[in-house]
């Protein structure tokens, strides 16, 4: 634990490895292979890699067609341009016919700092989660990414994976860790409050838990790598055992992880609950960490929410 690892590098490695194991896997880019790093895949399998130019709707349609012929296409672009621009193709030509296409939303949230709001997607989880039957995932570190992508390749059906650009601390290289779609992971136990985090916010939630501990507050951290289907059990268990819940995500608080957890709680448990995330706002151009800071997406931001929710008990 504690090593830093590049999520996108891990993705590139596992995709190339899976390409070796399964010849049905195909990689498609919309001219952003410099970001998806699929050159690792295409170097070994040039005939199974396609750059279709800057045409994301076409890319997803092509993937749908290939999937009907038994291929397992992974399509790549920024989250803004897969989940955002190609929403209709994902919805009608991939998920509605339940085709085996894996849609990658690279450089999600503010991890694409300098490019500004046009390239910072804070709505993708919301868009992808509401398509009936879609599986929606978001890895928190390099290790989880590798296990997740392997599971996704084995799963027969449509998936969306939200991928951060940045490197993160590795938390999931712990004994007994086994990725499973739809099963959240308790990274550290606690009884005062549960912080349910996804993606790069898991790292910040772990820092927050450490700092809270120094103040005598015992926080449980849950890595919710699957946004859909959401792990109801782990949420209800956390509600029962801690009595206070904070969700944290580098995504709009409307429609993403916070909403998914709120839906489970509202129908089952009445506990103090706060959604931490992007408060219905567009980003800004700037260094990634600066944009995160601006939106309060820091360990300190999580700590403030944790204390506020505990105070409501």
């Amino acid at each position, binding site marked *: 634990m504690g090593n830093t690892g590049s999520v996108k590098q891990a993705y590139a490695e596992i995709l190339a490895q899976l390409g070796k194991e399964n010849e049905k896997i195909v990689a498609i880019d919309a001219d952003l292979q410099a970001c998806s790093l699929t050159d690792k895949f295409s170097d070994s399998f040039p005939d199974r890699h*396609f750059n279709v*130019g800057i045409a994301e*709707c076409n890319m997803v*349609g092509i993937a749908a067609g290939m999937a009907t012929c*038994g291929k397992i296409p992974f399509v790549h672009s920024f989250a803004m341009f897969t989940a955002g621009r190609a929403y209709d193709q994902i919805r009608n030509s991939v998920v509605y016919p339940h085709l085996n296409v894996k849609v990658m939303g690279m450089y999600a949230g503010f991890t694409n700092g300098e490019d500004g709001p046009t390239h910072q997607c804070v709505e993708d989880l919301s868009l992808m989660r509401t398509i009936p039957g879609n599986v929606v995932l978001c890895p928190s570190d390099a290790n989880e990414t590798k296990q997740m992508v392997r599971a996704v390749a084995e799963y027969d059906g449509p998936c969306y994976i939200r991928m951060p650009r940045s490197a993160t601390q590795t938390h999931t290289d712990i004994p007994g860790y086994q990725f499973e779609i739809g099963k959240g992971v308790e990274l550290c136990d606690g009884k005062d409050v549960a912080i349910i985090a996804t993606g790069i916010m898991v790292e910040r939630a772990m820092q927050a838990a450490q700092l809270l501990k120094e103040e005598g507050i015992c926080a449980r951290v849950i890595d919710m790598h699957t946004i859909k289907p959401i792990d109801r059990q782990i949420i209800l268990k956390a509600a029962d055992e801690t009595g206070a819940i904070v969700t944290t995500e580098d995504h709009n608080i409307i429609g993403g992880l916070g909403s998914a957890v709120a839906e489970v709680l509202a129908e089952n448990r009445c506990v103090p609950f706060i959604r931490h995330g992007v408060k219905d706002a567009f980003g800004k151009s700037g260094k990634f960490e600066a944009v995160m800071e601006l939106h309060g997406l820091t360990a300190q931001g999580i700590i403030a929410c944790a204390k506020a929710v505990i105070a409501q008990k």
Partner: protein
Amino acid sequence: MNDTELSRKAFLLREQAAGLIYRGKSGHIGSDFSVMDILVTLFYLHLNVSPAQQTDPSRDRFILSKGHTAEALYCILCDKGFFPKEELETFCQFGSKYTGHPNKNINGVEINSGSLGHGLPVGVGMALAGRMQGQPYRVYVVMGDGELAEGSVWEGAMAASHFKLDNLIVIIDRNRLQISGTTESVMNPGDLRSRFESFGWQVWECPGNRIDALDQTISEAKASVGAPALVIANTIKGYGYSAAENQAKWHHKVPSEEEYQQILEELKERRAMIE
């Protein structure tokens, strides 16, 4: 079946499609009548598909990108034995799998369609997969002319020529009408031949409600080498029922009982006139 017999069949299938729409109280009759001869030519003379080949990886692939003409497609698939007539009679009823636009739970349907502009990119994917797998099949995509305003059509068109997909044939049902008027007045598609040629396609054009002309033109298009093929099939919307011919208002209209009887009568007459 020869061209004459198929021309008669196309009128008979129009009667069946009209019946589905009349009884199901929904459908796109003007478009069905427009596209019927194209679909008959494909399904009875060109497509290597049958109920027995549904999982055969070498079968031809057909995409009805203008998915709103589902009734025409369903009547043909039913006639070809993909599913029984009684099943199809549930068309557009609550819970029926025979939805207003095609979905792949229906035997013979390769992909859900109807969100316009989706079919060509999907066809490009099928054609690329066929090439990767060394399969001999061809991919046929039928598009409407109103649909050509969708940007994804041109993304697909660019990709098809970029990848030199000579196993892909697109047929445009060129009836010059769409929901709110003529294609020229709504969003002018311009000179389609030169537009597609400039995108690197081989282009053919023919009368689109004549089986013999369609048959010959599609045969020529299949011989295209190194480039995707386009057939501009010049059709008449509502073809076969004179009151609906070239009338945009019949795009999505359920006939009254009186109109339905007129439709059946006229289709029978037209069928009897074919020699």
